[in-house]
């Protein structure tokens, strides 16, 4: 992923309240004072859970219908 896609996605996540800027610094030795850290919000966690649940459902449907390459129905 390039910077154009990355920051475009980040902007939309910030606008939707899925992530927010964080004050936490990971490792002071590695840190650069210009670096901005972001952290997931409660709303973001809920959205992530819902998205993972959606993926889980898609996988279960694919399994049910034997759509995996090595389980094609004959």
């Amino acid at each position, binding site marked *: 992923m*390039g*910077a*154009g*896609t*990355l*920051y*475009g996605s*980040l*902007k*939309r996540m910030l*606008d*939707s*309240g899925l992530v927010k800027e964080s004050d936490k610094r990971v490792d002071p030795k590695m840190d*650069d004072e*210009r*670096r*901005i850290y972001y952290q997931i919000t409660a709303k973001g966690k809920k959205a992530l859970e819902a998205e993972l649940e959606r993926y889980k459902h898609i996988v279960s449907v694919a399994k049910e219908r034997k759509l995996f390459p090595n389980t094609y129905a004959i």
Partner: protein
Amino acid sequence: MQSKNVFYFLYKKLITLYPKRFKEQFSESMLQTFNDLYKENQNTNQSSFKFITWTFFETTIGIIQEHLLYGGIMQTIKRFGLSALISFLLILPFAVMEIVNRRNYNEDFPFALFSFLWFNLFTVTLILLPIALNKWIKQNNTKSNLEQKQTLLTNPKSSLIISAMLILFITVPSLLSFIGLIPSETSGESIFVFGIQVPSIFIAFVFYLFPIMAAYIASTPIVRTLQSGGSLFAHPIHLVIVVVISFLFTAGTISFIIDQLPCFMGVQFCD
């Protein structure tokens, strides 16, 4: 090192093409990311050409996307499109009544009448919809807290001046005409708009647009304030302009519908 500086300079210039808000928020981080990725690329001895071409291409796509999909252009298209659709749905029952009830009279469908109705409702929706939507969005706690750049139309003071000038441009000749200071010739096919006699339908339409533009411009700071979490009553004079003009257009449209109701109901020689 020299080539790095050239690419850095070009990338910096490319980023300036992003919408203003995006640029203010992310340009420094994007430059920093570019720097980091460039260094990483140099350390792994991979082709600089491939990296530079891909980065510039990908960022250009991002710039176009920000302008088209999420910038002001798309918001304006959405605002106009939604208003057009709502007004179409509002006149649809009357159009259906007209078609069903008057199909036996061998008359053409009155496109001019319905265009006029649609346009009136479209303008009222166009002015009020963003206010209503942003008020609703605010109540649902999904407001945007980002700082918004002021323009001539969004600045409360300048928008009020422009709006007031547009209103005066139409009300002064209208009042002068009403008290008889502007003589009007009633012979021939006279076109009157807000009591002012105009020589052509095009000029009448332009005159008709003035109060609409006034209300639209007055509504812009209200919408901006609501978007940034402010109160609906933060700009009371703007709100009065919006409410009065919207009310006049709505009242005009409703009285026009009531007047034409016998025609919609299928009464012959109703006009």
